[in-house]
Protein backbone atom coordinates (compact mmCIF):
# COMPACT_ATOMS: atom_id res chain seq x y z
CA UNK A 1 0.00 0.00 0.00
CA UNK A 2 1.17 3.49 -0.79
CA UNK A 3 -0.12 6.89 0.32
CA UNK A 4 -0.59 9.55 -2.33
CA UNK A 5 -0.82 13.21 -1.27
CA UNK A 6 -2.12 16.01 -3.48
CA UNK A 7 -1.62 19.74 -3.04
CA UNK A 8 -3.01 23.00 -4.45
CA UNK A 9 -4.92 22.70 -7.74
CA UNK A 10 -3.85 19.07 -8.16
CA UNK A 11 -5.73 18.38 -4.92
CA UNK A 12 -8.72 20.40 -6.09
CA UNK A 13 -8.94 18.73 -9.49
CA UNK A 14 -8.54 15.20 -8.11
CA UNK A 15 -11.04 16.06 -5.38
CA UNK A 16 -9.17 14.70 -2.37
CA UNK A 17 -6.00 15.56 -0.47
CA UNK A 18 -4.87 11.94 0.03
CA UNK A 19 -5.59 8.39 -0.95
CA UNK A 20 -4.04 5.06 0.03
CA UNK A 21 -4.00 2.30 -2.55
CA UNK A 22 -2.21 -0.73 -3.90
CA UNK A 23 -0.31 -0.18 -7.12
CA UNK A 24 -0.66 -2.75 -9.91
CA UNK A 25 2.43 -4.70 -10.95
CA UNK A 26 4.71 -2.88 -13.37
CA UNK A 27 4.32 0.57 -11.78
CA UNK A 28 7.96 1.09 -10.77
CA UNK A 29 8.75 4.74 -11.56
CA UNK A 30 7.18 8.16 -11.04
CA UNK A 31 6.35 8.33 -14.77
CA UNK A 32 4.60 4.93 -14.61
CA UNK A 33 2.61 6.13 -11.60
CA UNK A 34 1.44 9.33 -13.27
CA UNK A 35 0.39 7.43 -16.43
CA UNK A 36 -1.58 4.91 -14.41
CA UNK A 37 -3.14 7.53 -12.09
CA UNK A 38 -4.34 9.58 -15.05
CA UNK A 39 -6.52 6.63 -16.07
CA UNK A 40 -8.25 6.35 -12.69
CA UNK A 41 -10.87 9.12 -13.00
CA UNK A 42 -11.68 12.22 -15.07
CA UNK A 43 -10.39 14.30 -12.14
CA UNK A 44 -7.06 12.48 -12.09
CA UNK A 45 -6.84 12.82 -15.87
CA UNK A 46 -7.50 16.57 -15.75
CA UNK A 47 -5.05 17.19 -12.90
CA UNK A 48 -2.25 15.28 -14.63
CA UNK A 49 -2.96 16.36 -18.22
CA UNK A 50 0.04 18.70 -18.49
CA UNK A 51 3.02 16.91 -17.00
CA UNK A 52 5.21 20.03 -17.36
CA UNK A 53 3.10 21.54 -14.58
CA UNK A 54 3.41 18.54 -12.25
CA UNK A 55 6.07 17.98 -9.61
CA UNK A 56 6.50 14.88 -7.45
CA UNK A 57 8.18 14.07 -4.14
CA UNK A 58 8.89 10.46 -3.19
CA UNK A 59 9.12 10.00 0.56
CA UNK A 60 9.51 13.79 0.89
CA UNK A 61 12.35 14.09 -1.60
CA UNK A 62 11.85 15.84 -4.94
CA UNK A 63 11.78 13.23 -7.72
CA UNK A 64 11.87 13.00 -11.52
CA UNK A 65 9.99 10.82 -14.00
CA UNK A 66 12.59 8.07 -13.89
CA UNK A 67 12.81 8.03 -10.07
CA UNK A 68 11.98 4.50 -8.79
CA UNK A 69 9.04 4.24 -6.42
CA UNK A 70 9.30 0.61 -5.38
CA UNK A 71 9.16 0.47 -1.59
CA UNK A 72 8.12 4.13 -1.23
CA UNK A 73 5.59 4.87 1.53
CA UNK A 74 4.40 8.36 0.54
CA UNK A 75 4.30 10.07 -2.83
CA UNK A 76 3.19 13.68 -3.12
CA UNK A 77 1.99 15.21 -6.37
CA UNK A 78 1.69 18.98 -6.72
CA UNK A 79 2.21 22.00 -8.98
CA UNK A 80 5.61 23.72 -9.10
CA UNK A 81 6.13 25.35 -5.71
CA UNK A 82 5.63 29.11 -5.65
CA UNK A 83 7.68 29.87 -2.56
CA UNK A 84 6.72 32.35 0.10
Amino acid at each position, binding site marked *: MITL*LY*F*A*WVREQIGTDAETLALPAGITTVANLLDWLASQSPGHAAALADRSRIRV*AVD*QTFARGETPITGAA*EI*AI*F*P*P*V*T*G*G
Partner: protein
Amino acid sequence: MISAHLQAEPFDLAAEQAALVGSHTDLGAVVSFTGLVRADDGLIALTLEHYPAMTLAQMQAIAADAAARWPGVLGRIIHRHGRLLPGAPIVFVLTASPHRADAFAAAEYLMDWLKTKAPFWKREEWADGSTRWVEAKASDDTAKDRWTA
Protein backbone atom coordinates in the same frame (compact mmCIF):
# COMPACT_ATOMS: atom_id res chain seq x y z
CA MET B 1 23.48 28.12 13.57
CA ILE B 2 20.45 29.19 11.57
CA SER B 3 17.10 27.91 12.80
CA ALA B 4 13.92 27.43 10.78
CA HIS B 5 10.34 27.90 11.92
CA LEU B 6 7.00 27.23 10.22
CA GLN B 7 3.94 28.71 11.90
CA ALA B 8 0.50 30.21 11.40
CA GLU B 9 1.12 32.99 13.94
CA PRO B 10 2.75 36.34 13.18
CA PHE B 11 6.28 37.05 14.38
CA ASP B 12 7.74 39.90 16.41
CA LEU B 13 10.66 41.55 14.66
CA ALA B 14 12.20 43.23 17.71
CA ALA B 15 11.82 40.13 19.91
CA GLU B 16 13.36 37.90 17.24
CA GLN B 17 16.31 40.25 16.86
CA ALA B 18 16.85 40.54 20.60
CA ALA B 19 16.70 36.76 20.96
CA LEU B 20 19.16 36.15 18.13
CA VAL B 21 21.72 38.68 19.25
CA GLY B 22 21.25 37.69 22.89
CA SER B 23 24.51 37.95 24.78
CA HIS B 24 26.71 37.60 21.69
CA THR B 25 29.08 40.56 21.72
CA ASP B 26 31.02 39.78 18.54
CA LEU B 27 28.12 40.64 16.22
CA GLY B 28 28.44 43.95 14.41
CA ALA B 29 25.79 43.48 11.72
CA VAL B 30 22.18 42.35 11.86
CA VAL B 31 20.07 42.13 8.69
CA SER B 32 16.35 41.44 8.64
CA PHE B 33 14.02 40.81 5.76
CA THR B 34 10.28 40.95 6.24
CA GLY B 35 8.05 39.87 3.38
CA LEU B 36 4.55 41.36 3.38
CA VAL B 37 1.46 40.33 1.46
CA ARG B 38 1.19 43.02 -1.20
CA ALA B 39 -2.28 44.46 -1.71
CA ASP B 40 -2.29 44.08 -5.47
CA ASP B 41 -5.38 45.73 -6.85
CA GLY B 42 -8.42 43.83 -5.64
CA LEU B 43 -6.57 41.15 -3.69
CA ILE B 44 -8.62 40.07 -0.67
CA ALA B 45 -6.44 37.35 0.82
CA LEU B 46 -3.61 34.94 0.14
CA THR B 47 -3.68 31.37 1.43
CA LEU B 48 -0.44 29.42 1.76
CA GLU B 49 -0.75 25.67 1.54
CA HIS B 50 2.25 23.57 2.57
CA TYR B 51 3.33 19.94 2.81
CA PRO B 52 3.61 19.42 6.55
CA ALA B 53 6.17 16.62 6.52
CA MET B 54 8.38 18.20 3.90
CA THR B 55 8.19 21.99 4.10
CA LEU B 56 9.86 22.45 7.48
CA ALA B 57 12.51 19.81 6.66
CA GLN B 58 13.36 21.68 3.46
CA MET B 59 13.56 24.97 5.37
CA GLN B 60 15.88 23.37 7.90
CA ALA B 61 18.04 22.02 5.08
CA ILE B 62 18.49 25.43 3.43
CA ALA B 63 19.20 26.95 6.84
CA ALA B 64 21.95 24.38 7.42
CA ASP B 65 23.28 24.98 3.90
CA ALA B 66 23.50 28.74 4.49
CA ALA B 67 25.14 28.22 7.88
CA ALA B 68 27.81 26.09 6.19
CA ARG B 69 28.41 28.68 3.44
CA TRP B 70 28.72 31.54 5.96
CA PRO B 71 30.12 29.92 9.12
CA GLY B 72 30.16 33.16 11.12
CA VAL B 73 26.49 33.86 10.53
CA LEU B 74 23.75 33.30 13.09
CA GLY B 75 20.18 33.47 11.91
CA ARG B 76 16.61 32.36 11.83
CA ILE B 77 14.00 32.00 9.13
CA ILE B 78 10.28 32.01 9.76
CA HIS B 79 7.55 31.24 7.26
CA ARG B 80 3.85 31.52 7.91
CA HIS B 81 1.12 29.34 6.42
CA GLY B 82 -2.65 29.65 6.24
CA ARG B 83 -4.82 32.56 5.13
CA LEU B 84 -3.16 36.00 5.25
CA LEU B 85 -4.56 39.44 4.50
CA PRO B 86 -2.85 42.20 2.50
CA GLY B 87 -0.17 43.92 4.56
CA ALA B 88 0.38 40.88 6.76
CA PRO B 89 3.93 39.65 7.34
CA ILE B 90 4.42 36.31 5.61
CA VAL B 91 8.13 35.49 5.67
CA PHE B 92 11.05 36.62 7.81
CA VAL B 93 14.80 36.17 7.58
CA LEU B 94 17.19 37.42 10.24
CA THR B 95 20.97 37.12 10.02
CA ALA B 96 23.77 38.41 12.22
CA SER B 97 27.52 38.32 11.80
CA PRO B 98 30.65 40.21 12.79
CA HIS B 99 30.67 42.13 9.47
CA ARG B 100 27.90 43.28 7.17
CA ALA B 101 28.81 41.52 3.90
CA ASP B 102 28.14 38.03 5.26
CA ALA B 103 24.90 39.04 6.96
CA PHE B 104 23.56 40.59 3.74
CA ALA B 105 24.74 37.71 1.53
CA ALA B 106 23.23 35.01 3.75
CA ALA B 107 19.92 36.89 4.05
CA GLU B 108 19.64 37.30 0.27
CA TYR B 109 20.57 33.66 -0.30
CA LEU B 110 17.93 32.44 2.13
CA MET B 111 15.28 34.76 0.67
CA ASP B 112 16.03 33.66 -2.91
CA TRP B 113 15.39 30.09 -1.82
CA LEU B 114 12.32 30.86 0.28
CA LYS B 115 10.71 32.85 -2.53
CA THR B 116 11.31 30.22 -5.20
CA LYS B 117 12.00 26.77 -3.80
CA ALA B 118 10.16 26.57 -0.50
CA PRO B 119 7.34 24.02 -0.81
CA PHE B 120 4.38 26.38 -0.59
CA TRP B 121 1.48 26.96 -2.93
CA LYS B 122 -0.35 30.26 -2.86
CA ARG B 123 -4.00 30.80 -3.65
CA GLU B 124 -5.23 34.34 -4.22
CA GLU B 125 -8.76 35.51 -3.46
CA TRP B 126 -9.96 38.48 -5.48
CA ALA B 127 -12.61 41.11 -4.88
CA ASP B 128 -14.72 39.73 -7.75
CA GLY B 129 -15.04 36.41 -5.91
CA SER B 130 -12.57 34.53 -8.10
CA THR B 131 -9.63 32.55 -6.80
CA ARG B 132 -6.38 31.77 -8.57
CA TRP B 133 -3.37 29.59 -7.80
CA VAL B 134 -0.17 31.57 -8.19
CA GLU B 135 2.17 30.20 -10.88
CA ALA B 136 5.89 29.76 -10.22
CA LYS B 137 7.85 32.72 -11.57
CA ALA B 138 10.73 32.31 -14.01
CA SER B 139 12.34 35.52 -12.73
CA ASP B 140 12.62 34.10 -9.24
CA ASP B 141 14.27 30.97 -10.63
CA THR B 142 16.89 33.19 -12.22
CA ALA B 143 17.68 34.94 -8.94
CA LYS B 144 18.19 31.57 -7.25
CA ASP B 145 20.44 30.37 -10.09
CA ARG B 146 23.00 33.03 -9.23
CA TRP B 147 23.97 30.86 -6.29
CA THR B 148 24.17 27.47 -7.99
CA ALA B 149 26.05 28.48 -11.15
